[in-house]
């Protein structure tokens, strides 16, 4: 499992601080987060497409310094998702 932490307006609006998902890449993690939020019935939850605009860190490193959405994930990794307005 990969832990995905939410910060910024995303967290305030979904009222969720973090979720755990199964995903092998960042792209898959975005999709898994979308599915998770949908399953929880969160209104206006961001889609995987929206999440591409979120500032994303894997284990503290911005994915733009890694392999972007193709960045590989392994169990125990931590993703931080910051709303795009949280300080790019």
């Amino acid at each position, binding site marked *: 499992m990969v832990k995905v932490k*939410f*910060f*910024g307006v995303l*967290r*305030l609006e979904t009222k969720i601080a973090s979720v755990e998902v199964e995903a092998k890449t960042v792209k898959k993690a975005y999709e898994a987060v979308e599915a998770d939020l949908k399953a929880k019935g969160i209104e206006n939850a961001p889609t995987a497409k929206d999440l591409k605009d979120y500032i994303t860190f894997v284990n503290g490193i911005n994915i733009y310094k890694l392999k972007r959405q193709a960045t590989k994930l392994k169990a125990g990794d931590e993703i931080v998702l*910051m709303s*795009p*307005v949280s*300080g*790019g």
Partner: protein
Amino acid sequence: MAKKLGAYTGKVIKINLTDKTIADYPFSEKQRELFLGGKIMASKIFYDNLFEKIDAYDENNMVVISTSPLNGMPAPSSSRFNISAVSPLTGLLTSSNCGGDFGINLKKAGYDAVIITGKAEEKTLLQITDEGVEFKNADSLWGLHTSEVQTKIGGRCGKLVIGPAGEKLVRYACIINEERAAGRGGLGAVFGSKNLKAVTASGKKGPEAYDKEKLQEFNKKWVKALKDHPLTGKQLPQLGTAGLLTAMQMKHMLATKNFAKGQYEDYEKLSGDYLAENFHRKDAKGKSCKSCPIQCARAVELNGKLIKGPEVEIIGLLGAGILNNDLEKIIRWNYEMDELGMDTISASGVISFAMELNEKGLWDSGLKFGETDNVLDAIIEMGERSTERGNELAEGVKRMSEKFGGKDFAPHSKGLELSAYEPRSAVGQGLGYAVANRGGCHLNAGYLVFAEGLGLSANPRTPKGKASLTTLFQNIMEAVSAGGNCLFTVYCFVPGFMIKKPNSFITRTVNKLAPYLGGVLYFAGKKPELLALNLSAMLPHAIACKHATGSKLNMGKFIRIGERGYNMERIVNIRLGLKAEDDTLPKRLTHELQDASDKKSFVPLEFMKKRYYLMRGWGKDGVPPKKLIKKLKLDTTV
């Protein structure tokens, strides 16, 4: 005859507390056009009157309270007025901007600015109304905390007050108006040294705008733009400045353990989100500044009372800075500091520095990293100078380092404690801290952290282009402040879509080019005729000031006013003894790597400083030459 300028009262007075005299101070329309208002107007008054070193507590030190043309006008976030004096912390000119209701009320009383000099024989409350100035005895107010004084004064007027810290000459005492502070530089102690507990202002009607209809029309569009912008319309209103803390952590900009590191492992418990979830209360009315559509202040509850929540700077400094993850304690300490009337940034820097002095065996104050049970006691002791420890802490970081050692890790520049942004991961911010006129202030520095990580991501560890960006940002912010707007309104300078889509190709390209953009714009700034246009989306401030005053302003002229102000302050500081070597930072930031694996993780100050002097047109000694003084129209007696 040409129509008079709008938005100004046209009157400045000088009040002498020693002999209780009041005199008109000449400040012409031409000067209003060249120096706009607020901090630049105040700098001009110092520029014309201060020619040699003076101690902050000398009774001839002036306190200049100056309003801005947009104070009281239909314009967003425009209640910000200014207070300037020679600072007890830095010995240089300090200016502090405040968003309370005093500026608007001072204009209603009929004054654009008041200059207070001398020293009152008895504790004094100065009452300024549209009927005149009265000197009242303030014995019954002396000793009271800042909220108590305001309640006791009562009535419908703007109130500037100090708390016990100002009375006891704590070098970083502040002045409070409503729940807002003119925080930095120790202005409260200058009030205290003059036996001045409070100044009130009231009157029936302020001045009119030059073109009220156009200004109102423009205001509607501007407010809409601020509400539509992701930062000023969403992030700040929902999370306040505390919302920046996570980004600071992720970008290694969160000053941790007295600036030894840029990240704190327990940051989540300090984040804006955690604050919002656990402490925000809905009714934040009256906590934010007047006339502000952004309303960035958050209300929190302390002992059943709704108070203004802490800003990101103090959360950073008294959280990560001292290895404390207890946000509730920070809320309490923040409140206590406001009540005692102390600048929260400086006071927090003092505490973290004392902890490191203790850790290194240089001074045992009892304060230790990660241990917080005695912090509240220390805050009260410093605010009241009630113990030996409190007395030492009340002197500020610079003087403590001169006495106990630790200069290499004393977090200040020119004597002013640094804000919570760790500059080894935002080297342009490091340059700004070092060269800023008022010392280690994040805003006067040019707030490059915005370009280096908190808005854009312009390579935060490259020194390239940072000198020109710093110069440009400083000039813009100087002018915006003089016009009367909050500096957060400058966020709109960056188009909303770039904030909303930080990963887009355009944004990433701009981030890459940003270090070079400053040079281009600086060149344009050198030739203001090239900026003889008004891009309302980028810098609406110039247009609003134009409609308010009737002065023929455009972006180029507006930025030039900022440049004029920045240089004037520099010259006043040089008269006060400032040297190029004072534009510096503690060695920890310039010579120690923040991240052992990245050789670039330090502030390459000398490299950037040279370029900065060049960009500013200063000599290698950091002195503005005659040619520049002439170009800025500072050589004539206008």
